[in-house]
């Protein structure tokens, strides 16, 4: 087949328009994500440590956070405070503070450790290890980088099973050094969320461009 001169390797008009738009939007998104505050990456020099937090509510819903901290260790209560989740504690001398309420569960309480009903059970896990039920309160717990703190809202009677979600992966990118993990710190914007919005925006622009092209060149 004889191909007309000047058409060899010619890129279709649709691709010529679509690729620069997508590239520009993704590039802008990447640049935007790179300019975001570094603490949310869990990877800044100032806050080099990170602890995974897993909270399992009574209805089975699970909230996870990757909490960044500076220094060599952080207390269990500080992890909860930095996670941004609301919580309430009560002090038990000798054992430290017990957690009475997390994330508005229970909505109200008169006794932190009731004789019947549910209460928050505290667990900890070392890097790569399984959940272990804590024998002291959160203020007496110390966590190092890579550790995990877990809570499960569980009936006070009977056994206390650990959270159903493993801490592995909560700080995936933070531990591997890849930016944009499921990290979520109280301050700053999650760059992965920004990237997601940019991708969604790019896809919307792309769809509109396709429709416009289709109308012009049916």
């Amino acid at each position, binding site marked *: 087949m004889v191909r007309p001169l000047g058409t060899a390797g010619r890129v279709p008009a649709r691709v010529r328009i679509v690729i620069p738009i997508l590239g520009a939007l993704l590039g802008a998104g990447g640049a935007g994500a790179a300019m975001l505050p570094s603490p949310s990456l869990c990877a800044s020099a100032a806050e080099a440590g990170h602890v995974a937090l897993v909270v399992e*509510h009574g209805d089975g819903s699970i909230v996870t956070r990757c909490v960044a901290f500076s220094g060599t260790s952080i207390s269990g209560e500080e992890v909860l405070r930095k996670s941004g989740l609301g919580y309430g504690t009560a002090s038990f001398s000798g054992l430290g503070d017990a957690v009475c309420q997390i994330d508005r569960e229970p909505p109200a309480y008169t006794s932190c450790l009731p004789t019947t009903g549910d209460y928050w059970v505290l667990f900890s896990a070392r890097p790569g290890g399984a959940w272990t039920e804590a024998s002291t309160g959160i203020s007496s717990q110390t966590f190092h980088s890579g550790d995990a703190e877990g809570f499960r809202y569980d009936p006070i009677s009977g056994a206390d099973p650990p959270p159903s979600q493993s801490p592995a992966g909560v700080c995936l*990118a933070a531990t591997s050094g890849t930016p*944009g993990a499921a990290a979520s710190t109280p301050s700053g914007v*999650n760059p*992965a*969320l920004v990237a997601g919005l940019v*991708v*969604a925006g790019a*896809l919307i622009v792309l769809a509109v461009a396709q429709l416009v092209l289709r109308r012009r060149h049916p």
Partner: protein
Amino acid sequence: MNPRALAVWSAAGLVIALSTGNPAYRAIVLLCGLNLVAARGRPGVSARPLLFGAGIAALIATLLTLLLSHTGAHVLFRLSPGIPAIGGAFTLEALAFGLATGLGIAAVVLAVAPLTLVCEPHELVDALPRPLARTGAAVGAALNLIPGTIRSAREIRDAQRMRGWRAGRVADWPAVAVPVVLTALEGSLTLAEAMEARGYGAQSRTHLATTAWRAGDTAVAVVSGSAAAMFLVLRFSGGAPDWYPFPLLSAPPVTIAAISCCACLVIPVLWPRR
């Protein structure tokens, strides 16, 4: 685009949309589906009815969740608890969960829609594996009878009305139903005879190879299949966190790796047309 590559793409979209409740990932799958339909839809085939149906289904899911789920911290308004089923607090969390459910339905529809909006029906039948070829042809022929049956039902109803028939009691309906069934049976027999006259069932089927497998199809199948597999790995290792708005609404957690997997579904749009 080869229907088999498109089937792999659809399966990948379904896997991602159904394996997570996170609206962020579902939205990207939906947008990729929209892009594919916009870029590669068959000329003369409108996607509007399907999009309209998906929108209605998503709206119903959102409303039902809002009406029936009374969990959540942020109360928008309350109805008297005495009203059965829907009485109680209407919460922002329930609304968000309903929207996410509706988004999931729309994403699933848009993941499958390209199979009918991009490919010709005969291409889909041709793409079936050999053991399913006869079943596929029979199911395809049966599905093709549905519009014809609806059309004949309308015609028979109009004809009966002209003879004075009125839709009233159930006992009046056989006057329309019996001719419709007989017409459908007659149509089926005619179709069966036509298929037999064309050699259906005599020997293995031959067809024109109008949709050859090309490099672009390989790229679509490999990239979308890998993206779905990677998403599943991320999903079960905690790298693609799920989202649950109860008891307190929060932004959906996302990771760049999971978003990249979802965004890979745009590959059929970027690949140049053959």
